[in-house]
């Protein structure tokens, strides 16, 4: 822990809920960004709770962007910095929630990668549009109850599985892709730092439980995120040079039921639904793991 910066770049006094997972991630993302970085941040919980005018929690130059265009704003910043600085050029960090990244801001991010800008995009994944009252997004797991996917007699929560976003980004030819969990902030810090250091587009996606959106105890955020990793529901890996590497190998997957039962959004799941959830988790974990032995699988 000795080489981690003590200095905080994400100040106290922000307005996140008690026990907010994304707020913990912001502290470590900001530490990785440090002094010489410009941040373009799409709206969403972390933007709203950190910049209630005239206050800001950011100590790094920071620009608000609309919901859909952190990728475009960051691209413009990067192009400007390229002409303004010949050495010691500041890094560009883009931040978006899962709604912003998987759905609304996807085309701006996609274009930024295709144009090969030099940036790191961090998606903090709380698995729904939480800021506007917990609506489903392209990152919401199947059977999760949200305000737009209620659990009733006919409809049993959300009816789609998450988009495999890190692989979609990898297929674009990004230079570095990583998944992370807020239950391991050192790993998160290192991956964001690596994403900023590697020239070209990089993408880091970190799972961050949301207290009211997931219906979890406010003290259990880290425990839930840890189970997300240990059950295989959120596999941790990196893709560099087109090669997949598991950064947390699981000898055995903890039964996913242990993860689901801590979250009110999964209350009411039938035994069959838990079984389906389990086989989906196992399938994806094994699939990603199988890519590791295949060498270069992405451009």
């Amino acid at each position: 822990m000795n080489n981690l910066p003590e200095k905080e770049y994400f100040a106290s006094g922000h307005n996140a809920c008690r026990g907010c997972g994304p707020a913990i991630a912001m502290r470590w993302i900001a530490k990785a960004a440090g002094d010489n970085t410009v941040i373009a941040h799409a709206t969403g919980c972390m933007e709203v709770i950190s910049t209630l005018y005239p206050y800001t929690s950011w100590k790094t130059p920071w620009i608000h962007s609309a919901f859909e265009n952190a990728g475009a704003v960051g691209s413009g910043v990067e192009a400007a910095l390229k002409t303004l600085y010949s050495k010691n050029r500041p890094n560009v960090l883009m931040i978006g929630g899962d709604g912003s990244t998987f759905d609304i801001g996807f085309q701006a991010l996609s274009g930024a990668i295709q144009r090969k800008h030099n940036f790191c995009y961090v998606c903090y994944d709380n698995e729904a549009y939480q800021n506007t009252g917990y609506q489903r997004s392209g990152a919401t797991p199947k059977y999760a109850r949200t305000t737009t996917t209620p659990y009733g007699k006919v409809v049993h929560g959300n009816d789609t599985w998450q988009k495999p976003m890190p692989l979609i980004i990898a297929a674009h030819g990004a230079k570095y892709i990583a998944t992370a969990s807020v239950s391991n902030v050192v790993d998160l810090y290192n991956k964001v730092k690596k994403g900023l250091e590697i020239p070209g587009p990089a993408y880091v996606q970190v799972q961050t439980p949301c207290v009211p959106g997931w219906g979890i105890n406010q003290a259990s955020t880290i425990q839930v995120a840890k189970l997300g990793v240990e059950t295989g529901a959120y596999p941790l890996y990196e893709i560099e040079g087109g090669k997949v590497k598991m950064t947390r190998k699981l000898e055995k997957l903890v039964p996913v039921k242990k993860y689901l039962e801590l979250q009110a959004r999964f209350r009411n799941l039938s035994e069959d639904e838990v079984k389906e959830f389990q086989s989906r988790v196992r399938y994806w974990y094994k699939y990603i793991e199988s890519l590791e032995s295949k060498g270069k699988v992405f451009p």
Partner: protein
Amino acid sequence: MKKGLKFNIGGIIDEPGNSVETKKDGWRVHKPEVDYDKCTKCGVCAMFCPDGAIFKDKNGNYKWDLDYCKGCGICAQVCPVKAIIMKEEEK
């Protein structure tokens, strides 16, 4: 804003990290209390505090800044030696 400029070009905040001016102690229902006899100074609590309310002092002891602690209880939950307990705030 410059005189004569008709429109505000956007909200500019030129005091980095000034959210520290807005204390959050009023949000708290439970307060963390540390048993320093048990504490091993590992720093795990500080790592995971969403509000950055735990810091290391000059002697390497972890201290709580109750102006910003919202009382979520994460620090108590993650402490490996269970040195922190959450106590109901006195009114």
